């Protein structure tokens, strides 16, 4: 066999090598190539013998020439990995080795190159790397750590993330005791101890949100989960995850706090606040709204519509508004409205309705905010009344000033004229006549002053004491005191006032008012018939109305209506007309916050309605 060995040519031996092998001379020209090598590469490289290595494999990095040169100097080193595209176009990776090629005299005559296909190895390495990277990234992103507790060996392993969460160095070696001690003392530590015990003893898994205190003393919220692993029916290990949920928990707490703050705010706003869904069902009501609707628990209102809460009319108006807001998406802002409850209570609101939009920009409901302005409205009314009264007073005052000026002026004009005459008069008889007139003028002036004084007293004395007086009785009393006048004029007084009617009034004013109407009834009686004066009363709102009806001359209200109650306005050619009676009556009634209305037909009679508060 050994002899035979010599007979087998070297080239044939090399040809049969099971590894892809190349022999190159010092000029990198291929001397031998194994069949394995030839089979790995294309057919066109079959005649590679005699060709330069770098001509056959143009893909080869030129730096490898240097490596080979070193090899030819006896310093062999691995050439590394080189990728090639195979015949099907797939990238294959080869690891190249080389060794110096010695002849029998130990002279280097070339280099031996072996090529190993390592494509599959490279691919699986890449896959592993990828998986590792993914796991690491996932762990970092989700902040989920992994740990394992080997019960039999009593060891604990933490993954880097778990260590990271605990803020311990990566070489930290935990055990089951220290693991538990990281949990915050009290509830958290007790809970985890119990969970570990239950898991090791009974095989119950856990998932708990607890607080730990890290090695650096920071408090963190973590989600710790553990699952017992059985082997042949025995609990051997507990594996679990360890997740930092501080941000979530903190934001949850924050959200809850915000919710609470918002709820407190909404509840204590002096405004009625509610949220309705698309069907106008209430889904949120605040305390003011509950108070207004007389319920103690908001749940009594939730899910209800206005039709369940208010009378139909009120509910209908509200629902129409809701639909308008939700369909047009235009809010109703600060609109005054009156809300009427079943018990008839009216409340004035300044309300706004704002549409709530869903993610598609459609209204999913609305927010309602109402401010109870009943009191403000009441104040406003009072203020307006006050302004009306004041401007009326002002008007009266101006009127009064004109009256005073006019009356006094007319008297003084008479005096000056008469005195002028008197000074120039020679005729004694005429002088006497003038003096008579002066006396008359003086009397007139006195009377005017008395009248004015009466009016002034009235205007300044509005706070006079009121008393509860029986109207029927009072009419009878006045009637008796005017017996002479009434009988001589055959005035018939019909007292139809119900006996139990009492009114709050200044007694002197009532006397004056009744006397005035009775004397007017006499003064302005119709010449063709006997005068009748009818008294009766009725209630109208806050007022007791005294109705006084005569069958006298009547008055053309179109012509004189505006002047009827004016001072010194008379409308009849009657010697007793002073033009002051109705003026005073009106002022007396108004000073007691009442009013007077009049209806009349010329030739038929007049009806006065006196409204007493």
């Amino acid at each position, binding site marked *: 066999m050994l002899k035979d060995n010599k007979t087998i040519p070297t080239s044939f031996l090399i040809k049969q090598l099971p590894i892809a092998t190349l022999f190159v001379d010092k000029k990198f020209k291929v001397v031998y190539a194994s069949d394995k090598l030839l089979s790995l590469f294309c057919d066109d490289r079959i005649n590679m013998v005699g060709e330069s290595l770098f001509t056959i494999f143009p893909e080869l990095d030129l730096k490898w020439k240097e490596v080979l040169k070193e090899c030819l100097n006896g310093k062999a080193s691995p050439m590394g990995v080189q990728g090639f595209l195979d015949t099907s176009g797939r990238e294959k990776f080869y690891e190249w080795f080389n060794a110096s090629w010695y002849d029998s005299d130990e002279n280097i005559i070339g280099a031996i190159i072996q090529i190993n296909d390592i494509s599959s190895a490279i691919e699986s390495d890449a896959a592993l790397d990828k998986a590792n990277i993914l796991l690491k990234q996932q762990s970092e992103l989700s902040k989920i750590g992994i740990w394992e507790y080997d019960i039999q060996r009593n060891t604990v392993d933490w993954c880097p993330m778990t260590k990271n969460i605990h803020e311990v160095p990566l070489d930290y070696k935990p055990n089951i005791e220290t693991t538990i001690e990281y949990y915050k003392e009290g509830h958290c530590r007790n809970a985890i101890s119990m969970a570990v015990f239950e898991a090791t003893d009974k095989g119950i898994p856990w998932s708990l949100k607890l607080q730990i205190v890290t090695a650096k003393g920071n408090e963190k919220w973590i989600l710790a989960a553990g699952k017992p692993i059985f082997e042949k029916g025995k609990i051997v290990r507990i594996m679990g995850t360890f997740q930092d949920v501080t941000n979530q928990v903190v934001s949850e707490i924050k959200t809850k706090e915000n919710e609470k703050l918002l709820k407190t705010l909404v509840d204590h706003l002096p405004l009625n606040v509610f949220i309705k869904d698309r069907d106008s069902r209430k889904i949120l009501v605040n305390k003011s709204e509950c108070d207004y609707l007389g319920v103690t628990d908001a749940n009594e209102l939730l899910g209800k519509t206005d039709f369940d809460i208010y009378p139909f009319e009120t509910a209908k108006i509200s629902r129409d508004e809701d639909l308008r807001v939700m369909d047009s998406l235009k809010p109703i802002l600060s609109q005054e409205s009156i809300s009427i409850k079943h018990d008839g209570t009216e409340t004035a609101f300044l309300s706004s309705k704002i549409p709530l939009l869903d993610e598609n920009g459609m209204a999913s409901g609305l927010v309602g905010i109402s401010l109870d302005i009943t009191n403000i409205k009441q104040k406003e009314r009072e203020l307006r009344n006050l302004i009306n009264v004041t401007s009326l007073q002002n008007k009266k005052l101006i009127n009064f000033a004109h009256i005073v000026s*006019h009356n006094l*002026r*007319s008297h003084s*004009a*008479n005096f000056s*004229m008469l005195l002028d005459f008197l000074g120039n008069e020679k005729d004694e008889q005429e002088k006497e006549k003038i003096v008579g*007139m002066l006396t008359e003028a003086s009397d007139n002036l006195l009377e005017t002053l008395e009248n004015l004084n009466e009016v002034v007293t009235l205007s300044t004395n509005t706070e006079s004491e009121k008393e509860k007086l029986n109207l029927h009785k009072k009419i009878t009393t006045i009637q008796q005191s005017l017996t002479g006048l009434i009988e001589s004029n055959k005035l018939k007084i019909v007292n139809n006032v119900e006996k139990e009617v009492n009114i709050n009034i200044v007694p002197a004013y009532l006397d004056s008012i009744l006397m005035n109407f009775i004397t007017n009834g006499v003064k302005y009686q119709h010449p063709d018939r006997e005068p009748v004066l009818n008294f009766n009363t009725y209630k109208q709102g806050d007022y007791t109305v005294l109705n006084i009806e005569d069958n006298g001359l009547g008055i053309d209200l179109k012509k004189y209506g505006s002047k009827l109650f004016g001072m010194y306005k008379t409308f009849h050619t009657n010697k007793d007309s002073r033009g002051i009676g109705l003026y005073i009556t009106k002022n007396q009634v108004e000073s007691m916050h009442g009013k007077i209305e009049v209806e009349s037909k010329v030739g038929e009679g007049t009806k006065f309605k006196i409204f007493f508060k």
Partner: protein
Amino acid sequence: MRKINFISIVDDDPIMVFGIKKMLHTTVECEIVESYKNGKLAIENIKTSIKEQRTLPEIIFLDINMPIMDGWQFLEEFITLPIPQKVKINIVTSSIDPYDLKQWESYSKKTHHVITFNNKPIKRHEIEEITKVA
């Protein structure tokens, strides 16, 4: 002394009527001086005179504040009456209310009659002035 046929005085104050009459007596010679206690009596009399084609007053002394029908209501009717000749109407009032002055202006513009405005007490020279043109 000037001679005037017919003068009317419309005033509810007898002293004033007396005074005007007395002053007229010494300034003009007048055949008829009539007085009315309010605008209504005066206007009715004028209406009757027109109907019966009797003489109408050439000068009217007119008070404003009177019962039944005041001076302005009288004027309102008077200016609508078919009176071709110019009548001199002298408003004589104790009123210093600016409203009355405005009323006077507005009536002056509405009619061909001559309307003057005098405050009481009316003076003799004012009466002379009033009666001069007529």
